[in-house]
């Protein structure tokens, strides 16, 4: 996964949400960039779960505590409230069952932090509405036939899912195409239209 500027900002937003010395589980930890950032800046007790063996091996070689596993199946093996924070960064849309995964995050962590690309962004809508094509953008670079992202949602959809699971949104941030935070005073519809990515802090 390439890390562009906007995604970097998303990691910063996540990092800002986590107090020092927290116990953190990073689900979908990739090559460990977020875990390393959290360990360096927040001295967290961090663990990771990553699907790709290459990513895991890289993480462990860098001294991170990461295991190979699938968020869809392996979260079941973690104890209730075993972590202060469970982070799911840019991975929700690639899970087979986002609802169950989100439910597990809320079970395992005192708080869950979820970031995802917003499918309600105006560029996406424009692509479908005007061009009649599945959107391929800088943040969503895959064609429909080879994308790992099988469960896209909009910010609106996600808020609904949180309600369904009885989760409270403690904090939410939307980032525009330039990675800038969208003002808190803006209404949901504005976020859903101009937010390219969203980061949610949840509790249940």
């Amino acid at each position, binding site marked *: 996964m390439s890390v562009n500027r906007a995604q970097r900002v998303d990691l910063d937003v996540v990092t800002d949400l986590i107090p020092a010395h927290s116990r953190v589980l990073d689900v979908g930890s990739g090559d460990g960039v977020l875990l390393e950032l959290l360990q360096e800046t927040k001295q967290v007790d961090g663990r990771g779960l990553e699907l790709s*063996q290459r990513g895991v091996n890289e993480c*462990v070689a860098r001294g991170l505590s*990461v295991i190979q596993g699938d968020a869809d199946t392996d979260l079941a093996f973690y104890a209730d409230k075993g972590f202060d924070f469970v982070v799911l960064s840019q991975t929700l849309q690639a899970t087979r069952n986002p609802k169950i995964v989100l439910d597990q995050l809320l079970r395992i962590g005192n708080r869950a932090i979820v970031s995802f690309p917003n499918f309600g962004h105006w560029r996406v809508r424009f692509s479908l509405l005007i061009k009649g094509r599945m959107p391929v953008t800088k943040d969503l670079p895959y064609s429909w036939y080879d994308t790992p992202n099988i469960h896209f949602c909009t910010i609106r959809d996600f808020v609904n899912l949180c309600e369904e699971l009885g989760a409270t949104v403690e904090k939410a941030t939307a980032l525009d195409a330039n990675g800038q935070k969208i003002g808190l005073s803006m209404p949901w519809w504005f976020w859903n239209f101009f937010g390219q990515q969203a980061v949610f802090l949840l509790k249940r």
Partner: protein
Amino acid sequence: MAAQRAARTKDEVDHPSSPVLQFGPDKPLKLDAGTLLSPFQIAYQTYGTLNDARSNAILVCHALTGDQHVANTNPVTGKPGWWEVLIGPGKIIDTNRFFVICSNVVGGCLGSTGPASTNPATGKPYGLDLPIITIRDMVRAQAMLVDHFGIEKLFCVLGGSMGGMQVLEWAASHSERVFCALPIATGARHSSQNIAFHEVGRQAVMADPEWHGGKYLDFGKRPEKGLAVARMAAHITYLSEAALHRKFGRNLQDREALTFGFDADFQIESYLRHQGMTFVDRFDANSYLYLTRAMDYFDLAADHGGRLADAFAGTRTRFCLVSFTSDWLFPTEESRSIVHALNAAGASVSFVEIETDRGHDAFLLDEPELFAAINGFIASAARARGLGA
């Protein structure tokens, strides 16, 4: 050559070239079999220097047919230590930095008390009079050795295969004495298939008329043919079909055509015969029976009410597990079930599966990804333990 090696092996049993720690009647080894082993001895090797805080000790646990000579020339075979690729001055496990201990397991045949050792009660080798030894017994004995060095907490315990079982046992029964644990290519229990292969090996030994009901040493004999067959069968399980095919294929051994006989026409046959023959010079047949039995009996979950996670309840030890894709003796699933149990216990755990066609034996070989994982894990644990670079 072979006779010399065999003679050296015999010498190593009671009076090894390694340092030996003797435990008299006041310090018996309490065995799972319900009896006491006393007196007994442990032969060991150490490398590097124990620091003043006694916090830089690493215990290496050897596999079924390994020994304490992990990083020095083996006195019997004359070959390099079995993990010299990993352990030594300037190596990934740097003996300029760490104090490395490796001991021959109880039940072994290279200086720690085993079936070939002289039974003080009779003046003859124990043979089958030695009680059955378990993995937990081996670890109990190692703990007594670690006590002897005045080490309260080991920085790391690591090992592969049967060595990995000992690592898991250490982490389960002495968790407060293990800062980090590295079980490689192992399982929390021996599978039915693994027990089956061991049984084939044991039956081969016991079917050899030279075994004499286990008393062969009293007759000056050794069941070489049976033990060689046991080793040949076991050796296949340490490799993979892909590696065998890559190395040997259907290539013929020093001949142009099939001989229409039962000679070793194929290279793989010749290779296995060689493996079997060299093994019998350096290993005691009864020891092979005892150690395979110890592995068969190992079932960490069963020792903790059937729930593996309970074996690690409350542990503060850091774990890193490693498996290999082509290992069919201890497949990745075995490691994964340990990882799930550790997760459930809230333990700090890393898990790496390494892509290789070299099978179970990959843990003994020069595998860059294995070394990268061990290096990363040890380095970060050393920082956490306050052991500077």
